[in-house]
Structures are given as C-alpha cells and as structure tokens.
C-alpha cells in the first residue's frame, strides 16, 4: 500500500481522497446549515419551521436541492451567456478551494503551506468577482446595482480585515495556519485581542454578504440584487457558495481567534475535529442569530462603519499590540538568517 502511495498515481489518488473526505462532509454541513438557519429563525419568530419532509423536517434540504435541479436554467436574451454561467461556478469553486489549507486537526490540512493565511485572504477577496461578473453579465439594472454595492462593500471591509489578520500574525509569528493555532496553546487570541475579534466577526458578516450587510442582495430594495436573473442550478451554486463561505469564514475565525482544534484549557486533545466543529457551529449560530435580530444597514452607514470606525480602530489596535509585544519582549521567535 505504501509503495503504491509513493507513485505519482498514488499521490494523486491520495489528494483526491483527502479532498473528498473534506468536501463531502462540508457539503452535508452546508445542506444542514440551511435547515438549521430556517429552524433557528423559526424559533426566534415563534414559528415551527420546516417539519414536514422526514423526521423533524430533516430531509428538507435534500427536497429543496432536488427541486432546484429540476428547474429550467434561464439565460436572459440580453445577457453575456459565457460570463453569466461562469459567475456562479466561480463563486462555488472559490468557496470550495479555500478549504485546502484549513487544518481541522493537528496535521490534518490537505495543503499545509507556509503562507496559508494569505491564501485564505486572497481566495476570500476573490469572491467579489463572482458577484460582480454576475451583476454585469445579467444585463439587468437590479443585478448591476447589486454588483456595484458589493464591490464598494468588499473594498471597504477588506482593509480592516487585513489589519485584524496582521495583528494576529504579530502574536503568532507565522503565516502558517497550523502554527497560528499552536501559538494559542496558552491563551486563545480572542481574549487578549478581543476588540479585533469583534471587528473580525462584523467584517465576516460583511464579507459573506449576510444580514445586516446583505446590501448586494437587499431583496426589499433591489429585488435579489446580483442573482435576480438566475434560476435553477446556477442560482443553486450561488446559494451553496454563500453558505460554504459562511462555514469558511467561521473556520477562519476559529483558527485565528478560538484556538482551532484545541479544547478549552487543553481538555480532551483527542477530540480535535469535534472541538473545531463545535466552534464553527458557534460562529454559524451567530450568523443566523444576527440575521434574526438586526435590521439591514443603510448603505452610507455601512461605508462609514468600514472606513471611519473599523479602519482607525484596527490600525490603532495593531500599533498597540506591536508596542506591547516589543515592550514586554513577547515577540515570537523567528529563525535568524543564515
């Protein structure tokens, strides 16, 4: 067996197996996330939520998926068909691609690359192209407005998100995601960097176009925003991509701030993936909870929050963190140049 794995074909088979072992559970999580969202929203609004298909309505996501696949794919006559179909695929593929570097347990990442956090940041900042291309290729006013809103929103949030990540990197001393998690052995970064943790959670909502920052969709203002012209599986890919992005950003927050696969106070280290999953579920619950609680932000409020509140706050906290680390001599040790 080990002989086969050493050959190029064996290596390829290994990578494909690893990818499937990650993506299949991920898609199941995404499916049940839609169910959980509807159930939690129903509980917030004193309703019952889906309870017809299967026990407790558990089969509802699969019924929805089947319904979506049976529908007709409509391409508007004024649209650019190539880009129109490319946009949802891009959104979905990017949401899946980013998972290659996420370590769900010690040494369990498919690709344990040196600059993992930069890879994640790059992939998540590419997500805006799916929205923009969709909005432009649809050749529709509402979709176009959604695309413009999305572009402005992304650019204003990514700067402060970048500063938050740099602050974490200062404390961890590495761009490798596993090293970042291991640097939180003594204390999770959410405690010393609590303001950054809050900024990250709010930016995470804006980055995934979720309520209260779902202005690119804004169904009460611009119908459904960038995917107003989409139907069937093309719409389904946007939908899956959005929910997979929610799981991804939750995983990123877990790794950066809540100690990844490590239990609180080093409890039960054997349960690594379970701890990881629990923390991801905590963030996912926040996503749904916020959606059920807060009204949508007005557009100028959103821009103001990004540029005038988060940017100065994260920049100031970055300087303070660097000063404290240097002053107290807590800077992580880097290998000296030879």
């Amino acid at each position, binding site marked *: 067996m080990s002989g086969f794995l050493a050959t190029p074909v064996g290596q390829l088979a290994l990578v494909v197996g690893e990818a499937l072992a990650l993506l299949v559970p991920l898609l199941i999580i995404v499916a049940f996330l839609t169910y959980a969202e509807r159930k939690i929203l129903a509980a917030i609004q004193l309703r019952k939520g889906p309870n017809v298909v299967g026990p407790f309505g558990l089969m509802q996501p699969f019924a929805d998926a089947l319904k979506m696949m049976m529908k007709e794919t409509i391409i508007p006559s004024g649209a650019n068909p190539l880009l129109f179909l490319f946009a949802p695929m891009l959104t979905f593929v990017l949401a899946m691609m980013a998972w290659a570097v996420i370590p769900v347990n010690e040494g369990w990442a498919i690709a344990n690359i040196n600059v993992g956090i930069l890879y994640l940041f790059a992939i998540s900042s590419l997500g*805006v192209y799916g929205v923009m291309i969709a909005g432009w290729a649809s050749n529709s006013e509402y979709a176009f407005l959604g695309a*413009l809103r999305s*572009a402005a929103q*992304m650019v204003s949030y990514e700067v402060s998100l*970048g500063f938050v990540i740099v602050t974490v990197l200062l404390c961890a001393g590495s761009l490798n995601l596993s090293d970042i998690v291991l640097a939180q052995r003594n204390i999770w970064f959410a405690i010393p960097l609590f303001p950054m943790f809050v900024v990250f959670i709010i930016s995470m909502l804006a980055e995934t176009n979720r309520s209260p920052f779902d202005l690119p969709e804004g169904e009460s203002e611009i119908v459904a925003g960038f995917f107003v012209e989409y139907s069937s599986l093309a719409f389904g890919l946007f939908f899956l991509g959005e929910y997979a992005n929610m799981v991804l950003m939750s995983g990123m927050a877990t790794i950066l701030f809540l100690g990844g696969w490590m239990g609180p106070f080093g409890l039960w280290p054997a349960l690594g993936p379970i701890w990881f999953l629990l923390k991801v579920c905590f963030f996912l619950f926040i996503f749904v909870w916020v959606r059920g609680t807060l009204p949508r932000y007005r557009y100028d409020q959103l821009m103001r929050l990004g540029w005038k509140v988060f940017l100065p706050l994260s920049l100031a906290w970055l300087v303070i963190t660097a000063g404290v680390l240097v002053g107290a001599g807590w800077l992580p040790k880097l290998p000296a140049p030879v």
Partner: protein
Amino acid sequence: MIADIFFYIFSVVLLLSAAIVVSARNPVHSVLFLILAFFNAAALFLIAGAEFLAFVLLIVYVGAVAVLFMFVVMMLDVNFAELRSGFQRYLPVGATVGAILLAELLGLEAGWQIAPEASTLRLSPAPSGVQNTVALGQLIYTDYIFLFQAAGIILLVAMIGAIVLTLRDRKTMRYQDIRVQNTRRPADTLALVRMGLGSGVKPESYYRPHIPEPAGFVEEPHGHGPAGPGGH
C-alpha cells in the same frame, strides 16, 4: 520537468491575456483578462518559490486594484465610435513618438553594459534556512527601512492630493451628522396623540416637524398640494 512545462503554460497564457487586454473591444473583457494575467503572474512567482509575493500580488492587485478598475469600467459609458474617430488624425503623431522610443530603446540595448558581478548576485535570491517571507521582511524593514517609509509617504501625499483635487464643498450639499442621528430619541420625533373618532390630528407640527434648511439651499416647490389633516 513538470515545473518547466507549467512555466511555459503560464507564460503563454500570461502573454496572450496581456495582448487581449489591450486589443479587446469591450473594456470589461479587458479588465477580466487583466485579472487572468495577474493570476498567471502569481503562478509564475509560485514556481519561482516566492509564495509570499505570489499571494500579495493576488490580494493587492486582483483583490483590490482590479475590483476598483472593474467598478469604474462597468459604470463607464464608452462610445467606441467616438473613440475611434480620432484614430486617423492622431496616427502620424503617435507613430512618430513610438518610433523615437523604439529607436532609443534599441540604442540603449546595443550599448548596454552588464556588471560582471550582477549575474552571480541574481542567482542567490533568498538566504538559505529562512522562509522567503521572513527574508523579505528583514530586507525591507531593516536594510531598506528609509526607502520603504519614503515610498509610503509619497503614496500618502498622492492620495491626499487626489482627495483635495476632487473634493469640492458644494454649498447645496446636505451632510448627515451621525452624532445627531444617533442621539435622537423617540421622544424627539414621536408623539402619541389621543383623539376622538373621526376628528383627525389638528396641530400640523405633529406630522410635519420643522427642519432647518442648510444655508444657500433653495428648495424646489413641491408637487403635492396642501395636505389636510389626515389627508395622506
């Protein structure tokens, strides 16, 4: 071997997409091919072992700069017929400038002196035993800190200059004071009125509070006529 093959694939796609960027008729297609070119450049960095530069290229150029390009280009209403109408007229001038530049470049290339020690320096890109991210950081933030900071200040001045050039204080512009908005309480704007059946609200101040207009602002006459109490 595999790296060589991929190097040529990425290079060819990079050059092709760069050619399409300048030749495409639709400006949005140009931006999309520009993004493809950035991607392939990042892949070339990865093959060269400079993973930090590769991802910074993606984050900065694809994730931010190209988004703004796209934002502007999508909103542009370019009239291509008008754009091409001057082509014949400006062709001689443009061709002359291009020819002079080409001649100068050729002259430069012919007289180019390569420093003998440069080729050996070029072959040792990163110190051994250190990740290239760390090596780059030590180079920029210790050896070249002054140049790095000076470049940053030049960019800051350019940014402030652009803002100063475009920001005009229009007298008619209405600004929002966030502090005033956030300190508003329901009691400032809402009043509960107890009224009898069929009588309606009498004092007008309840439904039309007086808001002071900004100085110099001339209000257009409203289209809707005088609305009586309960007329809405």
